[in-house]
C-alpha cells in the first residue's frame, strides 16, 4: 500500500461517519431501522482504521505522511508575499493509534447504545449525533494544521452540546449542555488568539511549517515570551476541552447526557482531544509553557480526586476521576513525558470507556438509578459487568498486569524525573498522592456498587444482567485494559512496541527558552567547531542536522527517568495498595464508620462534597457580576439610550412645529401674496381688455407713437 492510498483511507474513515450522520438525520424518521446503517458505517470505519494502523505501523513506522491542498489562495499580499491557506492530512503513529482508539470506542458505544437507548423517542437522531461526533473527532486526529484542528474542535464542541442536551426536556440537561458549550468557548478564545499569533508570524497554519520556522530561529514578534504566550494560549483550548482546572466545571454536569455518550465523549475521546492538541504543539512549547501546563495538570488531578472522594452519584465519581486522569495526562505532557502522556490517553480511553459503559450497564439494570447509596451487592446479579468493571478499576488504580499500571507508572516516573532535574518536587508529590486517592475512591465506588448487602431491596430484585449487546463491548474493552496489548513485559513499558511507535518529538524552541536538561549538546559542539575552523562550518552544520534527527527529546531526561523508574514503580504500587486497603477497611469491613470520619473532618468533607464551591465562586464572581453588568446595561438602555432617542424625538417634534408654522405663515403667505398681486394686476388690466376693435387700434396708434418717440428713427 502506498502513502497516498493511506491518505485516501484516512479521508474515507473521516467522511464515512459524516455520511452516516446526514443519512440518518434526514431519513431516520421515515425508516426506523436506519440507525443500523450508521452502526454499520462506523464498523466499516473501524475496520479501515485497523488496516490503516497496521500498514502505517509496519511499513511506514518512521515516516510522517503529509498531504496538503490549497484551500484559499490570497495571491500576492502586500508586505507578506504569497499567502495561501492550506489544509491537509497528516498521518503519523500517533494519528493512526488515535484513529483506532476513536473508531473502536465509537463502534462499541454504538452497539452498546442499541440496547441502552432502546425505546427512546429520538432513537435515530441519537445515532446521527454519534455520527457527527465521530466525524469531528476524527477530523481533529488527522489534521495537519492548527486551523483544521480548530474547525473540528468547534464541531466536536457542537456535537458534545447536542448529546449532553439530548434529553432536553430535562432542564438540568439543557442547562448542562449550555454550560459545557460556554465554558469551552472561554478556552477556545485563548486558543484562537494563540492561533492568530502563530499565523501572524508564520503565515501558515501547518504544524510542520511552523516548527520549521521556529527551529530556524524565527520566534513570534522576535521574542521568546511571545512563543511562550502562544503555547499557553493554544493550551487554553485544551484546558477547556480537557476540563482542566479553572474550566473543569462543565464535565461533571455533562453527565446529564445518556451514559454511552458520557463514555464516548466525556471520558474516552473528546476530552482527550485537549491532550492530543498539546501533543501536536509539543515541539513549540517553551520551558515556561511546559511548567504552566504541568502545574495546571497536577493541580487539576489533585483537585478532582479530592472531590471524587465524597460524591454519591456513580457517574459523578467517574466524571471527577476522568478530570483527575486528564490532569495526569496534561501534567505528563507538561513534564515532557510525551510518550507516557499519550500512552495514558490511550489506556485511559479504554478503561474509562469501559467503566462508563459498565456504569451505564448498572444504571440500565437499576432502572436509571444513579445514586450509589441505593446500590450494593450487584456482584451476584451482574457478574460480567462486575468483572469487567473490576478490571477497569484495577487499571485506573495502577495495579500491575493492567494497562493503566504501565502508563501511570511511566508518567509518574516522568514527573519524578522532572522534579529531580528542575527542583519542582511538588508535581511528583501531587502525582503520587493522586495515585493513592484514585485507588481509594475507585474502590469505594466498586464496593458501594457491587459489594456488600443491597441497600434498596426493591431495585435490587429487579436488577438483571444486561443483554449481550452491552456486555460484549465491556468484555472487549476489559481485555484491552490488559498489559499484553502494549508490551510483552508487564513491568517495563519500554520493552513494548507502543514505546517505540510513539517517540517524543524533538523540541524546536530556541536554546535559551528550553529547560536546562533539554539543551542539545550537539549545538554546543557545533559552536566549538565553528570557532575552530570557519571553513568547515558548512559540513559541521550538515553533520549536526543529521545527528538531530536521531536525538530524542532529551537524553538527560530519559536517563533521569530510567533512574527513578524502579523506585517510582514500587512507590506507586505501595500507594495504590494502600488506597485499596483504606477503601476496604472503611467500606467493606466497616472498621471505620465513613459518616463518623466525615463528621470529624467536617470542613474538609464539606469542601469536597460541595466541589470546593467552585460553581458557587464562579456564580458569585462571574455570573452574578455578569448579571449586574447586564442589569446596568439594561438600565443604561432604558434610561440613557431610550432617553436620548425620546429626547431627539421631542426635539424633532419641536423643530417640526417651527417649520410647520414657517410653512403655513411664511411659505404659504408668500405664495398667497404672489397670487394676490397677480389678481390685483389682473383686475387692473382687465379694464383695458374691452373687446372693442377701436380701443385696440387706439392702443396700437399710441404704442407706435411711443415707440417712434423712443427710437427716433428720423
Amino acid at each position, binding site marked *: 500500500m502506498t502513502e497516498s492510498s493511506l491518505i485516501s483511507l484516512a479521508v474515507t474513515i473521516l467522511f464515512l461517519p459524516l455520511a452516516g450522520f446526514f443519512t440518518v438525520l434526514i431519513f431516520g424518521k421515515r425508516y426506523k431501522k436506519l440507525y443500523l446503517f450508521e452502526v454499520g458505517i462506523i464498523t466499516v470505519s473501524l475496520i479501515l482504521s485497523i488496516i490503516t494502523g497496521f500498514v502505517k505501523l509496519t511499513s511506514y513506522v518512521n515516516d510522517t505522511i503529509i498531504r496538503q491542498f490549497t484551500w484559499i489562495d490570497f495571491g500576492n499580499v502586500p508586505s507578506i508575499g504569497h499567502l495561501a491557506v492550506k489544509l491537509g492530512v497528516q498521518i503519523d503513529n500517533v494519528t493512526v493509534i488515535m484513529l483506532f482508539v476513536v473508531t473502536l470506542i465509537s463502534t462499541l458505544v454504538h452497539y452498546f447504545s442499541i440496547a441502552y437507548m432502546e425505546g427512546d423517542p429520538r432513537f435515530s437522531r441519537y445515532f446521527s449525533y454519534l455520527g457527527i461526533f465521530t466525524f469531528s473527532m476524527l477530523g481533529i486526529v488527522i489534521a495537519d494544521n492548527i486551523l483544521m484542528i480548530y474547525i473540528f474542535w468547534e464541531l466536536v464542541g457542537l456535537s458534545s452540546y447536542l448529546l449532553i442536551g439530548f434529553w432536553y426536556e430535562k432542564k438540568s440537561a439543557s442547562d448542562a449542555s449550555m454550560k459545557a458549550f460556554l465554558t469551552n468557548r472561554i478556552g477556545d478564545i485563548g486558543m484562537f488568539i494563540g492561533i492568530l499569533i502563530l499565523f501572524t508570524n508564520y503565515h501558515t497554519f501547518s504544524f510542520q511549517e511552523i516548527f520549521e520556522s521556529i527551529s530556524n530561529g524565527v520566534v513570534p514578534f522576535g521574542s521568546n515570551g511571545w512563543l511562550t504566550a502562544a503555547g499557553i494560549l493554544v493550551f487554553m483550548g485544551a484546558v477547556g476541552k480537557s476540563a482542566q482546572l479553572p474550566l473543569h466545571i462543565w464535565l461533571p454536569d455533562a453527565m446529564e447526557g445518556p451514559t454511552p455518550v458520557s463514555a464516548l465523549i466525556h471520558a474516552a475521546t473528546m476530552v482527550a482531544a485537549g491532550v492530543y492538541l498539546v501533543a501536536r504543539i509539543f515541539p513549540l512549547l517553551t520551558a515556561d509553557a511546559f511548567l504552566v501546563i504541568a502545574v495546571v495538570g497536577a493541580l487539576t488531578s489533585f483537585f478532582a480526586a479530592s472531590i471524587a472522594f465524597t460524591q454519591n452519584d456513580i457517574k459523578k465519581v467517574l466524571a471527577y476521576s476522568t478530570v483527575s486522569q486528564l490532569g495526569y495526562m496534561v501534567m505528563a505532557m507538561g513534564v515532557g513525558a510525551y510518550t507516557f502522556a499519550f500512552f495514558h490517553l490511550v489506556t485511559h480511553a479504554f478503561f474509562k470507556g469501559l467503566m462508563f459503559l459498565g456504569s451505564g450497564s448498572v444504571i440500565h439494570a437499576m432502572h436509571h438509578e444513579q445514586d450509589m447509596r441505593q446500590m450494593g451487592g450487584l456482584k451476584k446479579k451482574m457478574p460480567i459487568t462486575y468483572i469487567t468493571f473490576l478490571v477497569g478499576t484495577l487499571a485506573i488504580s495502577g495495579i500491575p498486569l493492567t494497562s493503566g499500571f504501565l502508563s501511570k507508572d511511566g508518567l509518574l516516573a516522568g514527573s519524578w524525573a522532572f522534579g529531580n532535574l528542575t527542583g519542582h518536587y511538588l508535581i511528583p508529590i501531587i502525582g503520587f498522592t493522586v495515585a493513592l486517592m484514585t485507588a481509594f475512591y475507585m474502590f469505594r465506588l466498586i464496593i458501594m456498587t457491587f459489594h456488600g448487602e443491597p441497600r434498596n431491596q426493591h431495585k435490587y430484585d429487579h436488577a438483571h444482567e444486561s443483554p449481550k449487546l452491552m456486555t460484549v463491548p465491556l468484555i472487549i474493552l476489559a481485555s484491552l485494559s490488559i498489559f499484553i496489548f502494549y508490551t510483552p513485559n508487564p513491568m517495563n513499558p519500554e520493552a513494548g512496541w507502543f514505546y517505540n511507535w510513539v517517540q517524543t518529538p524533538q523540541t524546536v524552541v530556541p536554546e535559551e527558552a528550553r529547560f536546562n536538561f533539554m539543551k542539545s549538546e550537539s549545538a554546543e559542539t557545533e559552536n566549538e567547531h565553528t570557532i575552530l575552523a570557519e571553513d568547515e562550518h558548512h559540513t559541521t552544520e550538515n553533520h549536526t542536522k543529521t545527528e538531530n534527527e536521531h536525538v530524542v527529546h532529551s537524553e538527560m531526561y530519559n536517563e533521569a527517568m530510567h533512574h527513578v523508574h524502579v523506585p517510582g514503580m514500587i512507590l506507586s504500587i505501595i500507594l495504590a495498595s494502600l488506597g485499596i486497603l483504606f477503601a476496604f477497611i472503611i467500606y467493606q469491613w466497616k472498621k471505620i464508620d465513613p459518616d463518623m470520619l466525615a463528621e470529624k473532618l467536617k470542613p474538609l468533607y464539606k469542601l469536597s462534597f460541595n466541589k470546593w464551591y467552585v460553581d458557587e465562586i464562579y456564580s458569585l464572581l462571574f455570573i452574578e457580576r455578569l448579571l449586574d453588568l447586564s442589569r446596568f446595561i439594561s438600565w443604561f438602555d432604558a434610561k440613557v439610550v431610550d432617553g436620548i432617542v425620546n429626547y431627539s424625538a421631542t426635539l424633532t417634534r419641536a423643530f417640526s412645529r417651527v417649520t410647520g408654522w414657517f410653512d403655513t405663515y411664511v411659505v404659504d403667505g408668500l405664495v398667497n401674496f404672489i397670487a394676490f398681486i397677480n389678481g390685483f394686476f389682473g383686475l387692473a388690466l382687465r379694464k383695458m381688455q*374691452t*373687446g*372693442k*376693435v*377701436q380701443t385696440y*387700434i387706439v392702443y396700437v*396708434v399710441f404704442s407706435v407713437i411711443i415707440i417712434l418717440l423712443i427710437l427716433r428713427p428720423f
Partner: protein
Amino acid sequence: MEVGLTHYLVVSSFLFAFGLYAIITRKNAILVLMGVELVLNAANINFVAFSRYGNLGLNGQLIALFVIILAAAEAAIALAIVLNIYKTFGHVNIDEIDNLKE
C-alpha cells in the same frame, strides 16, 4: 409760392389723421370702412408725391394703382363682413360688438 413735396405730405398727413380719427371714433361700421379708405388714399398721395419729387420714377405711381385695386378688393370683403355682422346682430354698431372680450 410753388407747390412742393411738403404740401403733398401735409395733405396726406391730414388725410391719414382724419382717416384714423374716423376709424377710432365712428360707431357705424360703414363709416369705419370709409376711414380705412381715407388712410389708404393718404398713402396713395404719398406714393405719387414721392414718385414725382423723388427718384423712384414710375414705381410709386404703379404701387398707387395697386393700392387702389387692393382697396377695391378690401372694400368688397369688408362690406361682405359688415353684411354678415348685420345679419347676426341686427345692427352695425361696433360699440356693442365686443365678443373678442370673451
